[in-house]
């Protein structure tokens, strides 16, 4: 029955396993005789997964995942670049299984590829959120990530989330305090989670610019993306939904474009975890206590819902994402993005900004009536003279126009309970730059030839 040469090829990896592996092989073959590996058809190979209704052995499964990942990774390259020229990219690691598997898959399709390898220059970045999630096992995660990055030969940069308020080493504690205040002043857990996601994404954008990379690659799985479909829609972020769940989402940052890529989009968590267990091994547990009560936030509720749907029918997640792929965000004017979350503004929002005659009279959200950014004056005064300061003493720079926020971020900011809320500098800068651009456009508009004047 089984071809001996095939057996030798497929069985190579199994010889490296411990002795008891053979016992299990026999046992499974006996129990599940009617199912053999879809690919190699070798009756002696132990099956490890039912992948979209087909059973696979370990060797064939590993091969399958690597091959399935490759075309998606190829989409994360600038198509105009010569194929053998390495593109500088940021690989965003979260410490979770999905991004770790992605890292291994990138390595397999680049550095370790035998033939037709893809050329990337990877820079791993981990945003440490332990200052707002105290149960995060920061040390375990960092030790593990350093080990993995070293193994695959990628440099690793660790950035604490509080650096959203600057990176002066002298005022770290002050920044932690500001970050905590800024996150905790939102009344709902959903908003707290969302704002920390926006801060994380902004740090990754900034880091990409510093590393001269044009893209950030995320390990977001199909389950996480399906969760996004529901959570974005429920939070009034439907406008940006098609961009956020696509494999490639481009945003402009002060004239530089940064692309967010999600090449793990094809895989469900079962596939990722079984690959991880067979190739990488177990990861350290990220949290020291159970992180999310089921009804903690809209995001976790949606995640629970997607898992339940997936349990009822394994096709649900694919169907959902295929439907989402058919949606298109109507306008893409790169000059107009939300100052806080970077999503594109709707036509209605853009028209509104363009109708503003004088920037200074806009509906501003400047809560900061005193010139000091924070209640703790002493710690800030030492830093406010440097460029790295967390906040500006110049009142004009702390103006956030609600007109430069998307619908959902306007609601988010309104929800904040702190009348002296200070947001990270980038938000004020974005807001100012959007209004200035709009005003300049308005000013030169009269000098431009109208199409009807011909």
């Amino acid at each position: 029955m089984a071809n001996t040469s095939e057996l030798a090829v497929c069985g190579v990896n199994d010889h490296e396993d411990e002795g008891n592996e053979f016992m299990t092989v026999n046992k499974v073959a006996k129990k599940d005789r009617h199912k053999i590996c879809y690919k190699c058809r070798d009756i002696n190979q132990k099956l490890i997964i039912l992948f979209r209704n087909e059973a696979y052995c370990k060797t064939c499964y590993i091969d399958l995942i690597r091959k399935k990942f490759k075309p998606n990774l190829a989409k994360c390259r600038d198509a105009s670049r010569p194929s053998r020229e390495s593109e500088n990219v940021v690989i965003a690691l979260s410490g979770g299984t999905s991004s770790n598997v992605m890292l291994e898959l990138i390595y397999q399709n680049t550095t370790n590829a035998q033939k037709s390898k893809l050329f990337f220059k990877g820079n791993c970045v981990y945003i440490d959120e332990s200052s707002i999630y105290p149960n995060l096992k920061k040390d375990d995660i960092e030790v593990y990530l350093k080990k993995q990055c070293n193994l695959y030969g990628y440099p690793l940069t660790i950035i604490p989330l509080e650096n959203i308020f600057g990176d002066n080493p002298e005022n770290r504690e002050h920044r932690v305090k500001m970050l905590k205040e800024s996150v905790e002043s939102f009344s709902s857990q959903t908003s707290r989670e969302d704002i920390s996601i926006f801060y994380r994404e902004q740090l990754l954008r900034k880091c990409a610019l510093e590393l001269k990379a044009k893209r950030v690659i995320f390990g977001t799985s199909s389950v996480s993306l399906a969760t996004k479909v529901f959570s974005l829609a429920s939070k009034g972020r439907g406008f940006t939904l098609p961009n956020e769940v696509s494999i490639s989402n481009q945003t402009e940052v002060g004239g530089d474009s940064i692309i967010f890529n999600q090449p793990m989009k094809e895989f469900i968590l079962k596939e990722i975890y079984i690959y991880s267990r067979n190739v990488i091994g177990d990861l350290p547990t990220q949290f020291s206590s159970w992180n999310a009560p089921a009804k903690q936030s809209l995001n976790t509720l949606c995640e629970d819902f997607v898992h339940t749907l997936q349990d009822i029918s394994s096709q649900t997640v694919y169907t959902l994402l295929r439907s989402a792929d058919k949606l298109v965000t109507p306008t893409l004017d790169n000059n107009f993005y939300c100052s806080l979350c970077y999503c594109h503004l709707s036509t209605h929002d853009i028209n509104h900004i363009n109708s503003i005659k004088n920037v200074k009279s806009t509906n501003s959200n400047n809560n900061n009536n005193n010139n000091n950014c924070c209640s703790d004056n002493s710690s800030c005064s030492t830093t406010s003279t440097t460029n790295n300061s967390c906040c500006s003493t110049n009142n004009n720079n702390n103006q956030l126009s609600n007109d430069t926020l998307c619908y959902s971020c306007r609601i988010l900011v309104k929800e904040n309970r702190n009348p002296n809320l200070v947001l990270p500098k980038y938000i004020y800068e974005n807001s100012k730059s959007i209004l200035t651009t709009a005003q300049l456009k308005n000013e030169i508009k009269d000098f431009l030839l109208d199409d009807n004047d011909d």
Partner: protein
Amino acid sequence: MKIKVELSGGLELLFNKIKTHEITFDDKKSIPLKDLIIWMKDNLLTERENLFIVDGTVRPGILVLINEADWELYGGIGYDVEDGDNIIFISTLHGG
């Protein structure tokens, strides 16, 4: 019969932070997986059972492996656990 139960992905936090449990049933030759998880809930679980069991089966989002293989190859919750089996429960929740 003697079996091994493994918990990971943070699920061990609900089981007194212990990842591996060896379980012996002197009076049995096999046990339905459905009964094993109830036994685990009654004897091993230390907090919030609704994070482990929902409607008599493993909560959605928890991946179950039977001797390192996907439980769907064995009919999922309908599987009969035998002597020497290694049952692995992995939480895939919040695993970005």
